[in-house]
Structure formats: C-alpha cells, structure tokens
C-alpha cells in the first residue's frame, strides 16, 4: 500500500516539470481554492458573482464503497451507485448568472441494519428499525436551479433545490421510503467599497413516507419505533409499519466577503429544522418530533496574489432535541396526547482551523491543512442513557492542476487524514433495553471511539476537442480508510463525461 502511494506522489511531483498552463475554465471551476468560498456561495446572490466563465459538464459515474464491517450499522457496509448528472454555470452577462444541476442516481446499499428509513443521519434517532435489515435499492432525482443578478450596488439571487429519493427492499422486511426535499433560497448582498455584505434566507420542506411489509407470514418480525440510544417506544412498536415524516425549517445566512477576494471574510449560518414522525395507521398520531438548531461560523483571512494563502476557522454547533408524545388511551382510534416531553438531547460541536497555500500562476497547485476537534454528546432522559465521544482530527491534502500539451489538463489530488479518539462514554440501562438494541449500540460505539487513518487520491484528465468548446474527461478516485478496530473501507469512483 505504501509503495503505491509513493509512486503516485512521485508522478504528481514530476508533473510540474513537464506541465503547461492548464485550462483556465477548468482551474476556475475545479480548483481546491474554491473550498474557501463555498460557504459564501450558499447565498445565491454571491453565487452569481462566483465565476467569470461558463462551465457545463455532463457525466456518468459509478461509485463503489465497501466496509469490511459496517462502521455504522444503520448506514450499511457500502454501496454501488450509478449516476448520470448534468451541471452548469452560465454567465449570461456581467450582471447575471444562472446555474443548474440535474442528476439521476440508481444503485443499491448493502447490509443496512436497524434502519427502515432513508436519510438516517437527518432524522435519527427517530426512525423505524428492525434487527434484520438487508440490501436496499435506491433511486435519486435531483434538480437544482439558481439565478442571480445585479442591480447597481445590490446583488440579488434565488435558488431552488429539489431532491426526491426512493429506497426499497425486495426481500422481507420490505421497506419502502419515499423522500421529497425542497429548498428555496433567496439572497441579497450589498456592495461597498471593499466588501459584499450578504444575507440569505432559506426555507425547506421535507417529507418522507415509510412502510414495511412482509410477504412471508412466518417471517414477520417487529418494527421498532426508536426513540434514542436504544430506547424503543414499545407501545407503538411491532405492527405500526406505516409512518410519515413531515418537516422543514428555515436557515439564515450572513456573509462578509471581500470584493476582490483578498481580506478578512466571515460567514454565519443559523438554522432551525423540525421533523415530526407520524404514525399513519393510528389516525395520524404524531409520535415524536425532532428539532435541530444549528449555528455555523466560518471566518478568516484570504489573499490571492502571486501566491494564494488562506487561514480560517470553521466552527459549528448543532443541537438536536427530541420531543416524545406520551399518548393516552384511544377512544375509537382517536389518541389523546397527555403530555410532550423532551426526552432526547444531542449536542454536536465541530471546530477546525484550516490553512490553504498555493499558487495559480502557471500550474494550479495548493496544499491544505486542517486540524480540528469534534465532540458529540447524546442523552436520553428516563431511563437514563448517555453516549458521548470526542476526537481530534488532522487532514493534509494537495491538489495539482497542470496542462498536458495544449488541449489537456490533468488534475491530481492526494489527501490523508487521521482521526484520533480523545474521550468516549456509553452508559445504557442494559437490563431495560432489548438485547438486540444493546448489541447494536455496542457495535456502533466501538467504531465511534476508534481511530481512523484515511488516504485518498484522484486523477482527472480533461481533453478539449480540437477547435471546439467541447471536451471529454475521465476521472478516477480511490480511497481507503483503516480503522483501529482492524476494519477498513475502500472507495472507488469512476466518472466519464464531457464538458462544454
């Protein structure tokens, strides 16, 4: 393994020697320097001023991931996805830009256990789960579109993002999840002598319907309504297999972006979302509601001249609270709610210091360094359950974009990351929890407190077809993660397409 990494590094190092200037459109749109601006570009008004050149890409890709043992049981051991996607950014004039994206993905996820829903990370722990699980087939449609323009000193922009997902299983337990996720964003920015001061507002509507059926009568197993850290809403578990989630939220973005790209910058994001789990077969009884509050701060200093340098902090704090409805006795299928109690609390803190250095004079090369701290605390009130873990991580990466001849561009990147466990705790009332749920928690916890070493590399070759604006490209991405639990993960992506 180490020998192969060495070879790649040598190859990459050799390129500047033979390189020519890479295609400027590609460098503008694909340089890793853009990660510094991604937060600001969430404001559609500022996204409209992101690029000076048009770029469109049509691609098909195959993505493969496999873990030797599932790091998170609910996410399975891996997936194989095939996708066709179209991506475009068009500068209509100096003042106006439009962008859009459409994609269709199909594939399957392997060995999903303890989750009969989609979007596990979004709505957990309030999911429907069973002990058997299995492989799921998946389809996803994404449509995005945005428009931005400028009126004097004011930039305005609007954006719409829609995602529809369909995940289902063809063997018992036959789960089916249908997700529709719509986000609308409207943003504005005011231009002063040196800065763009921006603010954007986002509204999201989310809906997921889930149901689980069994074709074999003898094989019916209970579907648990999970309520947090292995706790189960026993009363409505077993045969309540038709659920839907209604949710949505709003988000506020505030940006300070230096006009010429040099100077201090800051982005603040505040969001609140809620997702309610409703049992359809119990006369639409709401069982639980998950609230998510997020605050994200990104601030630092960037400078682009002969050399590019940026240093910034990235800190986010997410608080997830879960309300459980204590349900009374039903009269003619009408369930009164006696009281609502906040039984689940989850605090996630992630802070990192990032540095980027490079140049875009001839070849476009950058190195990036990231050092951060992550802490996740989960609590369930009664009977008391607790899980927490904290870890530090570091990431080192490099990207090189070099021209090969007049028509081609080669983009290589190499990344290495290390995650080290600092502190962890798991405390659950073992005697008051389903034995299978205890085993599930212990499995996931083992991987939450493990150390990880990760490496990934990607190579992309673009070739512009003679005298035209069309190009073709091929990209190969590979990565591996090694876990201190003697398990590992492998990832490969192959992407082919054309640019214009």
């Amino acid at each position, binding site marked *: 393994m180490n020998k192969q990494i060495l070879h790649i590094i040598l190859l990459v190092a050799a390129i500047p020697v033979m390189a020519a200037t890479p295609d400027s459109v590609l460098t503008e749109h694909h340089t890793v320097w853009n990660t510094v601006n991604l937060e600001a570009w969430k404001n559609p008004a500022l996204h409209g001023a992101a690029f000076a050149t048009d770029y469109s890409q049509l691609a098909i890709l195959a993505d493969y991931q496999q873990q030797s043992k599932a790091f998170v049981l609910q996410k399975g051991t891996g997936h194989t996805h095939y996708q066709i996607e179209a991506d475009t950014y068009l500068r209509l004039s100096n003042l106006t830009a439009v962008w859009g994206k459409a994609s269709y993905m199909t594939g399957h996820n392997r060995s999903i256990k303890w989750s009969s829903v989609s979007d596990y990370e979004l709505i957990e722990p309030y999911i429907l789960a069973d002990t058997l699980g299995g492989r799921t087939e998946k389809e996803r449609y994404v449509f995005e579109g945005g428009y931005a323009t400028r009126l004097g000193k004011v930039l305005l922009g609007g954006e719409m993002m829609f995602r529809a997902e369909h995940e289902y299983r063809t063997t018992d337990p036959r789960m089916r999840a249908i997700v529709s996720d719509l986000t609308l964003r409207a943003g504005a920015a005011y231009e002063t002598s040196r800065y763009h001061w921006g603010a954007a507002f986002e509204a999201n509507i989310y809906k997921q319907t889930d149901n689980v059926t069994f074709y074999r009568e003898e094989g019916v197993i209970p579907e648990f309504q999970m309520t947090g850290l292995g706790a189960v809403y026993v009363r409505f578990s077993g045969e309540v297999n038709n659920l839907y989630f209604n949710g949505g939220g709003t988000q506020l973005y505030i940006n300070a972006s230096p006009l010429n790209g040099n100077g201090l910058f800051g982005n603040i994001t505040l969001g609140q979302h809620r997702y309610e789990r409703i049992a359809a077969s119990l006369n639409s009884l709401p069982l639980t509601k998950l609230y998510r509050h997020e605050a994200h701060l990104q601030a630092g200093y960037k400078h682009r001249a002969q050399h590019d340098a940026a240093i910034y902090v990235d800190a986010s704090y997410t608080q997830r609270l879960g309300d459980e409805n204590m349900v009374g006795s039903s009269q003619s299928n009408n369930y009164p709610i006696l009281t609502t109690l906040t039984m689940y609390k989850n605090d996630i803190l992630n802070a990192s210091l990032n540095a980027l250095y490079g140049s875009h004079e001839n070849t476009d090369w950058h190195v990036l360094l990231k050092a951060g701290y992550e802490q996740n605390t989960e609590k369930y009130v009664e009977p008391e359950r607790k899980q927490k873990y904290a870890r530090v991580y570091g990431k080192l990466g490099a990207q090189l974009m070099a021209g090969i001849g007049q028509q081609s561009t080669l983009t290589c990147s190499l990344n290495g990351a290390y995650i080290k466990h600092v502190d962890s705790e798991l*405390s659950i*009332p*073992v005697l008051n929890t389903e034995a299978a749920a205890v085993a599930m928690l212990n499995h996931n916890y083992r991987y939450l407190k493990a150390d990880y070493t990760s490496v990934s590399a990607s190579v992309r070759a673009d070739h512009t077809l003679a005298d035209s604006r069309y190009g073709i490209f091929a990209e190969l991405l590979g990565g591996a993660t090694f876990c201190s639990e003697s398990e590992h993960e492998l990832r490969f992506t192959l992407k082919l397409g054309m640019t214009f």
Partner: protein
Amino acid sequence: MKKNFIGGLMMLLTLGLSLSACSSDDGPVIINEPVSVAIEMPLNLENVVVSNDVTTLVDVKTGEAHVAANAIKKTADGYVVEFNEVAEGTYNLTSKGDLTFTVDGVAGKSSFEMTQDNVVLSRQAKSAKLTVNTFAAKGGFVISEIFFTGTTTPEGKQYSNDQYITITNNSDVTLYADSLAFVESSFLTVNNYEYVPDISKDTLAVDAVYMIPGTGMSVPVEPGKSITLAVNAINHKEGNANSIDLRGADFEFYDISSNPTYNDVDNENVPNLDKWYCYTATLYTMHNRGFKSYAIAKMHGTKDDFLKNNAYVGKYVMTVNGNAYEMKVNNTYKVPMKWVVDGVNLSVEEEWQWNVLPANVDSGWTFCGKTLNDKTRYSKAVIRKQDADGKYVDTNNSTNDFTAEAVPSLLK
C-alpha cells in the same frame, strides 16, 4: 483590525468549546450510609422465621449485582437486610428465601420470591420495602373425603372396619398436620335437642378426639397432598372381598378394648393416632348412617389439661311419646370453635333436623343414603369437589362442596 477579529473569533471558539464541555460527568457516587431493604411479612402470619434468603440488587446499567445471602435480620421494625457501598443508580431488587410461620395456629412453611424493578437509590432515597404477598397461606387443611358407611360382606352383612377419612392440604404452602385431631360431634344431626348450657356458638361438643401426633413439624403435608386416617389400616380384602386395602393409610385409629373378644388390630407400619378421648370403651367406628358431624381441629395444650378442663357438663330435654325427660349429657368434651379447621355435617334427608356445626364451618350437610336405614348406603362416601385448577372447593357449605353418595376413592 485583523488581530482583533481573529482574537475575537478564537475567544468565541474557546467559549463554545468550554460551554459544551462544561457538563461534567461525575463518576458513580457511592451512598455513604447502608441501603436498607425492609421485608414486610403478610399480615396473617405469625412467628415468622426466615432462612436461606438471598437478596440481590442488580444495577440496571451495568448488570453488576450486590448479593446479600442469609442476611435478613429481624429487628424491632421488622425484617431488614442491609447493603453497603451501593452507588447511586437504578436497581432491580429481588429477594427470595424460605419462611416458616404459623397461620391460624397451624404451622406452615413456604418459600417466597419478590421482585421490584427500577428502584431508584440515592443519597436521599436509600431505603426500599418489599412486601411478601404473593403466596396464599389460605385454604389450609380440608376434609376431602369421609368414607363412613363401610362396606358389606359378600354375605350381605355390614362391615364397618374399613372406614377412613382423608384430609388434604388445600393451600399453596406446606403445612404441618401435627396436633390436628379428628373429632366427632356428640350431638346428632337428626335430634335437635335443646342443650343447656348452649355452647354451640363458639364450642363444638365432641365425643371422640383422635389426634395426629407430632412435635410441631413432624408431619409435613405438601400443597395438594393428602393424609388418610383409617379406622383400621389393614388389608380388609382378606376378610371381605368387597372391602378395601387400607395398609397404605397414613395413620390409624387404635383402641385398647376393654372387651378381650374385640381387640383392635395394630398395623405396626402405620402410626397410631393419639387418642385423647373416645366415648366407647371398645373400638371406635364412625356412625355409619351418617348422623354425626365430623371435623378436624388443631388441639392446643396437653391431653391431661384438656380432659381435666374441657368436659361438657350439661343437660338436654328429650321428648318421647309426648313426655319430656331431662337427660344429662355424658361422654362429651368441648372443643373451642377457634380450633376447628374444617368440618362436615352428615345426615339423611328423611331425618335431618339441624346442622350440628355452626354456619361458618358448614352451613349445609351431605349424605350417603336418603332414609333412616337406607340399605343402599354402603360402599359410598362423600367426596369434596375440586375446581379447574385442582383445588378443593370450600365455600363452607357441604351441600354444594361435596359430591354425595360417591364411590370411595380407595375402593377398587
């Protein structure tokens, strides 16, 4: 400007980090005083002695157990077991063991096991209480069968030596039959004389008392099991082909006859009942037409004290052919009704006048035979009915509780 900005940011970051890390997690807090678990005994048990007890506190989070064996102590406040070095938390509490006790005077033994889940123990709440409740010492001994008619010989003569009575432990606990006596009522159910003094409210007038001997725990009878008291525990089939083999009886009536021609047979393998009193100087048999009531009573005190203090001195008026004669009551002793554990009135339909036993012992009566000298009564017994879970029905009404004129269970 730059420095201040970044400085401010770093401060914010540190603040955020410290705030979230602020929720300090203390390690387990040990309750510094001992945790005391009180074991409350059922209200109707007396003289309770606990043995072989094991009390456990299992931590719901870790599964760790605190076990206290043979640690239940009797204190002024009741039965208590203590645990030391218990950490605050939620526990499943279990206590099990054996009890010996007396209920209504009758000694018994049983085991107990109680559990209370999710008991929260902390420095403020360091005690728990378990109540022993789940077993039923109710039911006690009942008369389950009386075979009083005897059989007939192949020649047609009546044969009464094969009479027996069966006593069953109808409760859920082991009871001891020591000092339980078979008593026969002096008065007949077919002659309702006015007895003076009238002791019937709280005393039973008896003319025979045969007691199961023992020192207190010598004769254990397990729940559902029976003991048979046979007038003669021999194989009667040898002398009478229509009779019963009673060699398997648990106790036998043994009388030393004053008449040398009539001697009681003593089966050495079957213990004899301790004869406190019998009206007859020869051999005892039950009234085979069923005119007397029978009961089982727990005797207290010694035989000598009983015979000295409990004789019934009284009179009754007998009316014959229109003439009233005052008669003295003879050969009768008094057994307090409090000592009576179970009783059955026997009579015949044609002759029944009154129930000798009070209503709270037996408000009805049962029979084998309908008329005064019913020739069809032989080889029949009265047997107590059983309900669906095998328990004997005891509503203190033998009219309902017994199957009359039944085939004796030992007659094969």
